[in-house]
C-alpha cells in the first residue's frame, strides 16, 4: 500500500533578515489514517498587512485541520464530481475557519492601530494539497506554485493560473470574496501516476534562473525521489529553502513542501 509522506522547510528571506523582519511564510503538514495534507502560505509584505505572519500560520493550520476533518468524508471513492464537492462544501468552511481563527487571535491581541477591515492585516496566500486516495486535491489562493510530478519525470500544474496575479498584487484569504478567488483541481490517482507534489511560496519560483523552471525541476525531483527516501529530502529541503531565500536567490521568504508517495511506513516529517 502506498503511503504519502510530507517533508517541509521554511527559510526567512535575506531581505527580511537584513531589516530584522520576521518571516511571513508558514508551512505545515498533517496526516490521518486516510488523508495527508500539506500547506504553505505567504503573508503579504505590504504595510497594511502588518499581521500577515500570523495570518500565514493560521492559513496552514486551517488547511491541515479542516483538510483532515472534512476531506475524507467529502472525497469518497464513489464521488462523481469531487471538484464541485470541494468547491461547495470545503472551500467555504476553510475560509470561514481561517476567518474565525483570525478573529480569535484578534480578540487576544486587539489592534492598537485604526483598521477599517479587521481581516486585512492578516492577509495571506494559501497553497495546499491533500492526498485522500483515490483523490488528490490541489487548492490555491494567491501566488505560489503547486507542481504534480509523475514517476517518469513529467510534471504538470493542475491548478489553473490566475491572470490577475502580477507579482505585486495577489488574491488573498483576507478578501471579502476569497472563496471566488480559490482555484482548485482534483486529480484521480487511479488514472494519474503521481510520484510527488511540490508546493512552494513565490520565494522559490522567483529564485529559479529559468522562467519555465517547472519541467526541469519536476524531472530532477522524480529522479531524486527514485534514488532517495524521505530522510534524504528532510535533510535537503532546508538547504533548498535557505538557498532560494538567500541573496543568491530571490531574497524572499521561501517555503517548500513535498508530498511524496512511498511504500515506506514512516510518519511524515515536519520541522
Amino acid at each position, binding site marked *: 500500500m502506498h503511503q504519502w509522506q510530507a517533508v517541509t522547510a521554511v527559510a526567512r*528571506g*535575506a*531581505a*527580511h533578515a*537584513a*531589516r530584522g*523582519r520576521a518571516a511571513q511564510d508558514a508551512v505545515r503538514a498533517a496526516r490521518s489514517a486516510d488523508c495527508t495534507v500539506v500547506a504553505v502560505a505567504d503573508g*503579504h*509584505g*505590504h*504595510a*497594511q*498587512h502588518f499581521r500577515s505572519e500570523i495570518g500565514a500560520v493560521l492559513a496552514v493550520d486551517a488547511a491541515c485541520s479542516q483538510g483532515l476533518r472534512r476531506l475524507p468524508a467529502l472525497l469518497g471513492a464513489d464521488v462523481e464530481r469531487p471538484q464541485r464537492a470541494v468547491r461547495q462544501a470545503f472551500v467555504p468552511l476553510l475560509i470561514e475557519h481561517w476567518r474565525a481563527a483570525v478573529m480569535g487571535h484578534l480578540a487576544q491581541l486587539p489592534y492598537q492601530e485604526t483598521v477599517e477591515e479587521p481581516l*486585512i492585516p492578516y*492577509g495571506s496566500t494559501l497553497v495546499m494539497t491533500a492526498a485522500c486516495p483515490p483523490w488528490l486535491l490541489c487548492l490555491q489562493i494567491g*501566488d505560489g506554485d503547486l507542481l504534480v510530478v509523475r514517476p517518469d519525470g513529467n510534471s504538470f500544474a493542475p491548478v489553473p493560473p490566475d491572470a*490577475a*496575479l*502580477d*507579482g*505585486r*498584487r*495577489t*488574491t*488573498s484569504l*483576507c*478578501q471579502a470574496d476569497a472563496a471566488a478567488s480559490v482555484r482548485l483541481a482534483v486529480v484521480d490517482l487511479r488514472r494519474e501516476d503521481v510520484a510527488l507534489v511540490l508546493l512552494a511560496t513565490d520565494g522559490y*519560483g*522567483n*529564485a*529559479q*534562473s*529559468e*522562467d519555465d*523552471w517547472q519541467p*526541469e*525541476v*519536476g*524531472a*530532477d*525531483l522524480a529522479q*531524486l525521489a527514485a534514488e532517495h527516501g524521505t*530522510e*534524504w529530502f528532510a*535533510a*535537503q529541503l532546508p*538547504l*533548498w529553502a535557505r*538557498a*532560494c531565500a*538567500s*541573496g*543568491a*536567490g*530571490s*531574497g*524572499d521568504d521561501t517555503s517548500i513542501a513535498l508530498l511524496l508517495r512511498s511504500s515506506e511506513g514512516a510518519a511524515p516529517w515536519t520541522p
Partner: protein
Amino acid sequence: MTAHDTPTLRMPGGGISRRPLHLILLADCSGGMKGEKIQALNYAIADMLAQLAIWDRAQEQAQVFVRAVAFATEAVWHIPAPTPVVDLRWRPLQPVPRGLTNMGTAFQLVAEALAPGRIERRALRPALLLITDGLATDPPGRFEAGLNALLATPAGRGALRLSVAIGRDARSEALNRFIGDPSVPVLVADSTSDISDRLVVASLAVSRMSEAGADRAALADRLFGHGGPGDSIFGQDTII
C-alpha cells in the same frame, strides 16, 4: 548519515539567481544636446551606472541589467542587450546633427523590448529613465502612439518611469504623461552641472525602491519631496 554530517546541497532544476531589475535609459541625442550638454550627460550616466554597480554588489535582491535607447529624429538602441550593470562600460552618446526630439519612436522601441515574453516573468518591475533637454517634436499622433504602445505592455505600464529635464524649458506636459503619476515630479537639471545630481536621485529611486521591505513612501518623500509616489507604484505585495 550521522547527526554530525553536513548534507551536500543537491537542488533540482537549473540553478538559482537574483531577480532581474531592468533599467532602460532613453537618452535625448537631438542636435540641441551637442557640446557641453552631451558631455555632461555622458559623464552623469557613467557616474550613475557606477553607483548602481556598487549597489548591485551590496544588496541581495536584484541584479540590475541596463539597456539604452538614443533618440533624435529616429530612435536606435545604444545598448541593445540587457547588460549587467557591473559589467557595463559606458560608451558615450553622440548628438545627431540637426536631429529632432521625437520621443514616440523611443517609446515604441522600448515597448517592443518589454512585450510579454521578452523579459523574465520573475523580473522586478522595470525602470525607465527618460532624459531630454527639449520639448517633444514628434509628428502629430506619434508621441501618443508610442506612449500608448509602451503602456499597453504590462511591464511598461507597471514600470517605474522617471524623467530628467535638462533645463527648466524641457519640463513639459509630455514628460508628465510619460511618468503617468502626478505625485512623481520631473527631475529638473537647471544646468549641465546639475545633471549628475538628478541622475543620482533617479538611480536611488530605481535601486532603493526596488528593495523588498523598503519603506517606499518614506523614500519617495525623501527623494521627490512630500507627496511623492507611495504604494501605488512601489508597494510590497498586497491584495488585488
